[in-house]
């Protein structure tokens, strides 16, 4: 079937029930989207589907025809994604870094909808993303920094 990923139309050969995660990783070689739980419990696989933060590990490709899928590999092309990647580097957020693709994708969806998030907004948007290294305080700081940067530009 055809999927629209990061602006490109891609021909995918996989069973209909295959979650997007494994199509991205195993069939298309896009390994920036991570596997953590397979049950939408940890957020490591977060992508955007029509702009909405979506867990790729439980989203079968059969429901994605005609939808716009954006992954960590291309989120930097959006103003929010770019601002977040810059802030993440500045705050030196990552420890092991494994969950950070998903963290940035969730944060990008948050900022697209809520340009000036409160701590409560951040908690609500980010609590589905687990970081076992414990980078939460820096993630919060980086989201605020990115939001401030975007506001200045606007």
């Amino acid at each position, binding site marked *: 079937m055809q999927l629209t990923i990061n602006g490109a139309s891609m021909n995918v050969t996989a069973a209909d029930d295959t979650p997007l995660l*494994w199509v991205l990783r195993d069939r298309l070689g*896009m390994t*920036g989207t991570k596997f953590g739980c397979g049950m939408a419990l940890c957020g490591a696989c977060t992508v955007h589907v029509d702009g909405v933060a979506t867990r790729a590990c439980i989203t079968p490709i059969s429901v994605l025809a005609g939808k716009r899928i954006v992954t960590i590999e291309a989120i930097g092309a959006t103003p929010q994604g770019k601002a977040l990647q810059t802030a993440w*580097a500045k705050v030196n957020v990552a*420890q092991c870094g*494994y969950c950070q693709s998903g963290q940035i994708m969730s944060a990008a969806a948050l900022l697209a909808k809520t340009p000036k998030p409160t701590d409560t907004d951040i908690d609500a948007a980010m609590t589905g993303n687990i970081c076992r290294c*414990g980078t*939460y305080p820096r993630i919060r700081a980086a989201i605020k920094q990115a939001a401030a940067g975007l506001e200045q530009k606007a």
Partner: protein
Amino acid sequence: MSEQMIQRRTFLAGLSGLVLVASVSRIAKAADAPKYGADGMQHGWRDDPLTFVAIGEDGIVTVVVHRSEMGQGIRTGLPMVIADELDADWSKVRVTQAPGDEEKFGNQDTDGSRSMRHHFDPMRRVGAAARTMLEAAAAASWNVPVSSVRAVNHEVIHEQSGRRLGYGALAGAAAKLPVPARETLRLKNPSQFRYIGKENIALLDSSDIYHGRAQYGIDVRLDGMLYAVVARSPVFGGKIARFDAAPAQAIPGVVKVIEIPGSPGPALFAPLNGVAVLAEDTWIAMKARQALQIEWNDGPHGTYDSVVYRTELEQAARKPGKVLREAGDVDATMAKAARKVEAEYYLPHIAHATMEPPSAAARIVDGHCEVWAPTQAPQATRENVAKRLGLPFEKVTVHVTLLGGGFGRKSKPDFATEAAFLSQQMGGRPVKVVWTRDDDLHHDYFHTVSVERLQAGLDAQGKTTAWLHRSVAPTIVSTFAPDPQHEAPFETGMGLINVPFDVPNLRIENPAAVAHTRIGWFRSVSNVPHAFAVQSFVAELAAAAGRDHRDFLLDLIGPPRRIDPAALKDSWNHGESPVRYPVDTGRLRRVIETVTREAGWGRKLPKGQGLGLAAHYSFVSYVAAVVAVEVSADGKLTIPRVDIAFDCGPQVYPDRIRSQLEGAVIMGVSLATLGEITFKNGRAQQDNFNTYQVTRMAEAPRDIRVHLLPATDWSMPLGGVGEPGLPPIVPALCNAIFVATGKRIRRLPIGEQLAT
């Protein structure tokens, strides 16, 4: 990929006979040195610039990092050390990962909070030696004395003539020079450091991580690769009675079903008995695994039940056990004490739950096996793969990828051997094994379970006169040897026998315990249960004596003094020299004084709030924490702030020290509030992050304040960083809860215990 990158570059030095002789003599010398620190580790350390630095004609400096990156920042930290002594321009420094080869790189076991503490000095010498060779090459090309030139920020300058040459231009000539003798190297005065100890240094992997390009073990892709998931014995030591592969094999996309034999005896790092499904993608393999019909023989551990086992540990802790350390007369003093206090503390099994589950890829070409693995133990991975495949050690290459979390789990490379074994079964075809989260939680090398029983006698003035601690926990040694029943020195030396308390009558005992599952290192290891018990108990004693907890703790530690670990019967001392690394109660007192001052200890708090204190010495570093809690009327716990004071001696990469401590605080909160693996019928009962919960952003402490103690004396030996932050968090949290609510937590996790 990394090897190709290096081959495309000019090596700083070529392979002249002279250079090889120099390298061999360095190895011999390292082996003769006293067996402490890096010298005491298998294959010790290396400091040959030929091994660790390559400079291209474009001036790009590529540093080889031989320690595994799992979030501690070592892939940036070690290059900072080399670049500083090399006087390199940081923007021209790149990093590449060493494959598993300890003969060449020195010890690569990335555990024990040792990477910087053991390799700081060797890496300084690597940088200084490379700089010396560049200076010599420049002086020779200008025909001037080497003393008249100096390296400054990626160039060598001859000031008299104003001539200068960049490192790229000099690399070729420098390559032909001998490596200078170690004794002749001129190291920087610490006041000249440009990167070491400095702020605002971003991770070298930062851009790759934030753009989805960083490669972890699970991301490896090889041409023609198959994806494998494995159904493993749900009970440790269990075996397949029979299985039917046909239903799985019938699923389109399944290529092969293969049994992985287990090994008899201790777990070691060997794969568990299981059935692997190899398929065209991971999803097909996961689905097909569900279709496998396997009948298991559970074996002797099929009755393991954590509720029953807890009772067994408690029974053992209530009877005398093997005496590890004894001073004075505990029983007589206890009998006449004005007040006797006793308490038991329980810490359940915990799973590492690295965000990247175990995963590895392997292929075999012309009898040579290559493995890609997120491993903390590259050498052991290589040895285990070679042994299992029946290949000579030289015929195995282990490429170390980034680790999506380690915490000790990835010190055990059973998953890498699985991948290599399956590739061999497929005639060398590339195979990647992926563990699902339930695989990870069911087949971890779990943190040990423990009961700690403490008893103390107080005199009429509230001073502690007798101390009895019995620690009961299955030992990590059970993973390597048949049926050991006592904690090993490396476990008892983690805050059990080496409590630096000024108590005249003291006895430490270790009754027997038998392991029923795979037990392994978890970040901070035995320090976690020992610190939880000891530091909670001290707060209980302070409360019993009616005294301020901080004052009571400082009195118990006693005056500043340097204690020989041998006097505490600690023969291990984290592998470090007792002379260079005595237990320094002055430093322990200082972190306590610092953290309580910074946290506003003693301030009045509204009802339902409290501050809790704990301090702990581990991995030759000193830590104290104050946790602030708020407990609502219906028992909801929030942690608005944590202060943590840390003394690890000189600080090489302060930002990463802070991040490790922030992470340790959150991991401590996580295991204290939520962490528990239970067993029933030999099976771990938690399957995923719904039943094995970890702390998420909304529940994490919002405000973590790290207070690094000033350390300007670079002649002081370095302390560990990755692990020591964790142990005091759990008791500090429980002590805060007691202050806020009057409820004493003696069983972890806290879970619903605060609900009223």
